[in-house]
């Protein structure tokens, strides 16, 4: 699979965080930019953070041009990733449906569909009868918030979360990238406004460039380099049911009632909840959030009423004020951040890694991620995706 080397004294690039985004960044740096002296440093095992804690939903139906280009860049990479990495991503384009429950939802979604189509995305409007045909088990009219329609992106879907971490890790390892697990980065060392390396539980490791992709803990690490990021870390919970026969062959999300669901190939329902209402690093979250989600799920799908849930967990997500990520340089030379993915980073994994590798290699952003800079929080060019992100990012 991949080696577990001891860290060298010095690297060209150190990537902090061995999730999909970090490993992907190493892969694209080695493959497309010819940088081979790279270490990916992970405090646990690779993919043990939010890469292994999400609900694996992939889509690109975001409102604004910048987001549509970024997320669709990712979907396009997903479409060929199994071939490229020679590893089965189990990428299944089963479609992603966003339900509308009131007049405002309908207007907002139709506006988003129009914006998507202008950007070449395959989003379409579904009437309730179309939804019923696709998801017969859904209760559309006998509930507090009736289902009045949906936005549907057929190219959306799900993939296997472990596969993307392992696929990138194997191919990066083959190109000479050091994947160092069970090694925690404590702080980022800087001198005269330039990055020098990282202090870790295995000692100081020097590097010309340091790229931080540590999701919920990014702002904690940034602070050690004297960089302040506009992020807030919160638990985002998900749960999985006992396996059942196939009942739902698409992904259904509803921002209004705070619930989304898909069925894994093993037959388990994968259910996502909203974030907890306060900052926390506990990776658990509160049960009231789960209760609210399960209530909505049971109302939307009455046949799930007696089902048992097998597992529940939380991941710590880093949320930006405009619900869009930061893929950017900062005031410290040689220090780069890829963070702020909030509740929806999984879908963007290959795209984010691809443009972040470009940013790190050239010390300049790729045109796709140029707008996702830190300056937007002072010049006001926010990319407000609360509508596309909301609960179910």
């Amino acid at each position, binding site marked *: 699979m991949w080696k577990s080397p001891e860290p060298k004294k010095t690297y060209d690039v150190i990537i902090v965080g061995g999730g999909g985004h970090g490993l992907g960044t190493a892969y694209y740096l080695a493959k497309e930019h010819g940088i081979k002296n790279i270490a990916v440093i992970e*405090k*646990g095992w690779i993919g043990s953070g939010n890469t292994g804690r999400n609900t694996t939903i992939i889509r690109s139906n975001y409102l604004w041009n910048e987001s549509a280009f970024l997320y669709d860049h990712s979907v396009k990479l997903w479409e060929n990733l199994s071939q490229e990495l020679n590893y089965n991503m189990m990428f299944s384009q089963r479609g992603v449906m966003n339900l509308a429950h009131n007049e405002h939802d309908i207007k907002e979604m139709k506006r988003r569909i129009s914006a998507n189509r202008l950007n070449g995305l395959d989003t379409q409007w579904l009437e309730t009868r179309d939804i019923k045909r696709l998801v017969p088990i859904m209760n559309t009219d006998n509930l507090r918030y009736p289902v009045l329609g949906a936005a549907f992106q057929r190219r959306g879907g799900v993939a296997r979360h472990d596969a993307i971490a392992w696929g990138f890790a194997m191919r990066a390892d083959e190109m000479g990238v050091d994947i160092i697990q069970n090694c925690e980065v404590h702080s980022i060392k800087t001198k005269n406004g330039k990055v020098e390396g990282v202090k870790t539980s295995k000692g100081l490791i020097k590097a010309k460039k340091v790229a931080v992709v540590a999701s919920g803990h990014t*702002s*904690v690490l940034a602070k050690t380099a004297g960089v302040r990021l506009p992020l807030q870390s919160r638990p985002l919970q998900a749960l999985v049911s006992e396996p059942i026969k196939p009942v739902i062959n698409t992904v259904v999300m509803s921002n209004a009632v705070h619930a989304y669901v898909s069925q894994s190939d093993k037959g388990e329902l994968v259910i996502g909840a909203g974030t907890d209402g306060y900052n926390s*690093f*506990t990776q658990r979250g*509160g049960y009231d959030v789960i209760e609210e989600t399960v209530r909505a799920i049971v109302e939307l799908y009455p046949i799930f009423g007696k089902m048992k849930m097998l597992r529940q967990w939380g991941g710590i997500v880093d949320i930006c004020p405009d619900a869009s990520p930061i893929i950017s340089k900062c005031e410290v030379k040689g220090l780069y951040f890829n963070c702020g993915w909030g509740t929806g980073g999984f879908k963007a994994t290959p795209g984010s890694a691809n443009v972040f590798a470009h940013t790190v290699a050239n010390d300049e952003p790729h045109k796709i991620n140029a707008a996702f800079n830190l300056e937007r929080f*002072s010049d006001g060019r926010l990319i407000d995706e609360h509508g596309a992100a909301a609960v179910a990012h």
Partner: protein
Amino acid sequence: MILINCPYCGERDQSEFSNGGEAHVARPENSENLNDKDWGQYVFYRDNPKGIFYERWVHSHGCRKWFNAVRNTSTDEILAIYKLNENPPSKESFINTLKTPSGEPKVGSGNFTVKK
């Protein structure tokens, strides 16, 4: 679920409350002279520590009064609660007794793998 001891109503479930984010963020006095960067800091940037966090809560489904709390964000343990007109307790009063989620030596970006 956290229990929060509202200074006006007593201990209640967290779901009765809403969180108001970081406490003691003062609006800049000289806003007409601030540059975009400093104004951006006030509008968008908030502390996000793992460990001791001074924050605001409101008892939305109770007395609807605001108050402040000090919470350890790595365990969700509430260390102190004080009213808006009271002085915040000093950070030093908690720092030596701070618990970590799995008994790590210190709260940082640490997790179980650094446990000695």
